[in-house]
């Protein structure tokens, strides 16, 4: 299979992001150089293997198992309550010995596969019943994640699902109505449905009082980012990380450590690569010459591309203090197995959707 320029650029930008991510993960954990090489290899191999797997498997086959995958995934999410291990007061992880998985991460994929499978029967025509059905399933499946409690993953899941329905063509009026009711209901949700921990995160974002520990985290994150300056302090020179001033430096706040080491220039390069990846993927998807009656590959490709793009931007907006912090991993900047596996699957599905289109 010949690789054209666009595909090359897409793969090149992805590779750039993955290398930047691996370097940063290594600098945060910094065990030894061998560890870095091993980590990079594992990341690349797992991405390639998973991508190839999904590229190889007929997308139709995957899609026809959509509802089953959603049910299985939901069962895993629920089983966390029983078998899961607790970290930071919330049970999210299933421990498989060699790898801990967070089943809720995969709900974004399962739900998408289910929705596409369902809508395919109706040629992606929405009516009131289908809209309500899909929305209800989205909110109902989000409930156990939020209860875990993992408000961040739950919210991201809901937003992802809504984006998918938006891409698939659900009528605009639903989104407007949902937006309005979310604003109207937010005080009720804040007072009755959130835990103290979650409220603390929200309060800290609006408060100017620096002594709140949540605000402190964001301040430390901004200090890390700002200390990088234009060109950064250099690879492996993050003092904020060395002296443990930045909490969760290896997960949620990893981009701040990246910014401290590589400066504004590094940030611009990574964001540029991300933009190249997203825009080129979109162009590839939309400029498919051959019209097909089945739109599912378009929807899937677009959906996963934007999931990666927006996940990245949301995380960066959080660590730079523009939106409240909820636990959201940065794509390819994490040593967390679930996140890596999840994004690998997404990439595989993106690639397979294009292969599918190409016929």
């Amino acid at each position, binding site marked *: 299979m010949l690789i054209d320029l666009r595909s090359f650029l897409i793969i090149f930008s992805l590779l750039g992001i993955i290398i930047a991510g691996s370097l940063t993960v290594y600098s945060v954990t910094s065990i030894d150089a061998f560890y870095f090489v091993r980590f990079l290899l594992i990341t690349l191999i797992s991405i390639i293997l998973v991508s190839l797997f999904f590229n190889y498997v007929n997308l139709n086959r995957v899609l026809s198992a959509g509802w089953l995958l959603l049910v299985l995934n939901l069962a895993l999410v629920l089983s966390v309550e029983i078998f899961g291990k607790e970290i930071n007061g919330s049970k999210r992880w299933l421990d498989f010995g060699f790898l801990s998985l967070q089943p809720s991460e995969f709900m974004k994929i399962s739900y998408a596969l289910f929705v596409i499978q369902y809508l395919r029967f109706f040629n992606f025509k929405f009516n009131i019943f289908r809209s309500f059905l899909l929305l209800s399933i989205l909110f109902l499946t989000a409930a156990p994640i939020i209860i875990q409690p993992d408000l961040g993953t739950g919210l991201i899941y809901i937003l992802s699902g809504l984006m998918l329905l938006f891409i698939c063509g659900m009528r605009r009026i639903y989104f407007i109505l949902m937006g309005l009711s979310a604003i109207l209901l937010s005080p009720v949700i804040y007072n009755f449905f959130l835990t103290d921990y979650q409220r603390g995160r929200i309060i800290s974002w609006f408060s100017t009082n620096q002594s709140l520990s949540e605000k402190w985290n964001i301040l430390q994150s901004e200090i890390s980012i*700002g200390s990088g300056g234009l060109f950064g302090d250099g690879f492996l020179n993050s003092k904020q990380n060395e002296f443990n001033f930045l909490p969760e430096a290896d997960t949620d706040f990893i981009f701040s450590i990246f910014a401290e080491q590589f400066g504004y220039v590094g940030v611009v390069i990574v964001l540029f690569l991300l933009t190249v990846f997203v825009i080129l993927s*979109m162009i590839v998807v*939309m400029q498919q010459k051959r019209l097909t009656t089945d739109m599912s590959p378009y929807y899937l490709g677009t959906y996963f591309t934007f999931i990666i793009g927006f996940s990245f*931007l949301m995380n960066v907006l959080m660590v730079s203090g*523009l939106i409240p912090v909820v636990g959201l991993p940065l794509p390819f900047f994490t040593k967390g197995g679930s996140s890596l596996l999840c994004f690998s699957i997404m990439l595989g599905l993106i690639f397979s959707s294009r292969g599918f289109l190409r016929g």
Partner: protein
Amino acid sequence: MDNRSFFRGRTIFLTFIFLALIVIVLFRFFYLQVINGDELKELREKNINTFEYVYPKRGRIISKDGFVLAEDRKIFSIAVNLNVKPNEQAIEKLISIFPNKIENQYVKDIVEKSIKTGNQEVVVSKLNQQELSKFLVRSNELEGFSVIENYERIYDPHPSIFHVLGHMGYLSERDKTYFKSRIDQYTPSLWRRVGKSGVERIYEEQLRGKHGKRFFLRNARGQKKVEIGKEDFIEGSDLNISINFNAQKKAYDLLNGRKGSIVVIDLRDFSIPVAVSAPSISANDLRDISSKEYQALLNDTKRPLFNRAFMGLYPPGSTIKPFFTIFALSNSYTNWQEQIYDDGFFRFAESGRVFNAWREGGHGLTNLNKALVESSNPFFMNLATRYEKDSFTDFLDSGSFGKRLCVDCWPHQFSPLISDQWKTKNFGSRLFRGDLVNMGVGQGYLSVTPLHLALISAMIAKKGDYEIPYLVQKEQDIQQLNFDLTEEDWKQLHESLTQVIYSRNGTGIRIQPGDMKLAGKTGTAQVKSINSKEEYDDLRENEEFRDHAMFIGFAPYDEPRYAISVVIENGEWGGSVAGPVARDVLLEVFNAD
């Protein structure tokens, strides 16, 4: 509508949102990294760079005869090293080195506490040389523990010196207020232990020195990581105090367990070579005292923590007579010729009250000289009936009643200045003539501290001129008694006080000072007001109600160099109990000259 173009529209919409967010993020990072970069970097440096103070070595306190009375001694302790958490083997190893001092659970608790607070908590304190080397030899097996150095205040253990030196203790709110008004730019947060009393407190600023600093990089939990530099401390200055330690010890030992006080003033410069308050303790005992033991000391009926020399108020008894002689002569209330008949009683015409004198049968015909030498109460009571209240108060005022009596004694008590206002304030009525009669023989409202008694003795020895006594630093202004006495009168007064010791009838004949040339006045101060000798015999069954034995004196009488006061509580006899003590103390003081 065609699915595809509909889909394209929505995709473009999302792409625009994506690009808009990219632009926002780029602006945000530009703001943080390029515009605010330096400021945030400074915050990061503040995060990481920190320092801790190194406590300075406090100055020594040295006696006039060259004894080091207080000094900081370096001590080595083993503390939890915050960089590494000690493991089970290291803890066991440590216990095997100090088997009798520590046990497993204790060490573990301290390790936990250290990690929690971020302080290097001490596991074993005050290592001796042998223990230190034992630890150092095995230090590679003792990861998680390290040796830290600091200072401990060591005092000469003799209890005589405690009240003068004072002691150190943890800084309290009251100390903060005290030092804030006395020390420029006082920063209480730097000091954990400060002088609580005595010269340790007064001379805190000179003694304490200046902190050093140790700079290091630290992590967010405050655990020390890398030391990157240091600044040495400046030692506190040594303090030379006027105490003659040999005489001081001798004086304390002479009191031999009795409650009392001895103060000597050097008449050449008004420094204080001896200031003893007994009973006392060693300041070393207060260093690591438990609150229970401290409470026991506070509740001790002998009050060992109370500095009698500077704080104890005693009726001066007959020892005040020479002082009032100056007052009476300078106001011409009497002269050396006037005689009265002393039959052992004084009948106070104004109230019809009869005062019983100490000597049965009285002294017969008595003039001023005889009244001093044999200590006639009726003579001085009779004299006191002539005193004019206001000039009496003026005279007391010129003799430092109601004023500071020492430049650098702490704590310190005034002797009350008796006046109409004083009595009105305390007893609700003005002074009666009867009050003056009582005070004329050193009883009633009159009370003085032993330091003041010694100073009064000094005033007499120096013929009315005196200075405020001191332990370390002299104050330059000279005080003067309000008197108008001829040189003849002074000579006669000194002569009478010499006869107290050397004449056959003198109350101090038992003192036998040899060739020291001692002049003085004995006194016996009533603890309870009584009317007859029989009443006293009943009273003295209870030791607490026995009279105080008092003595003031100076020597040599022809060229006075030292003035002394001795107060022995419930000692009963000024001449035979307090006098000989004064003699022996002065002998020791003269030895040093």
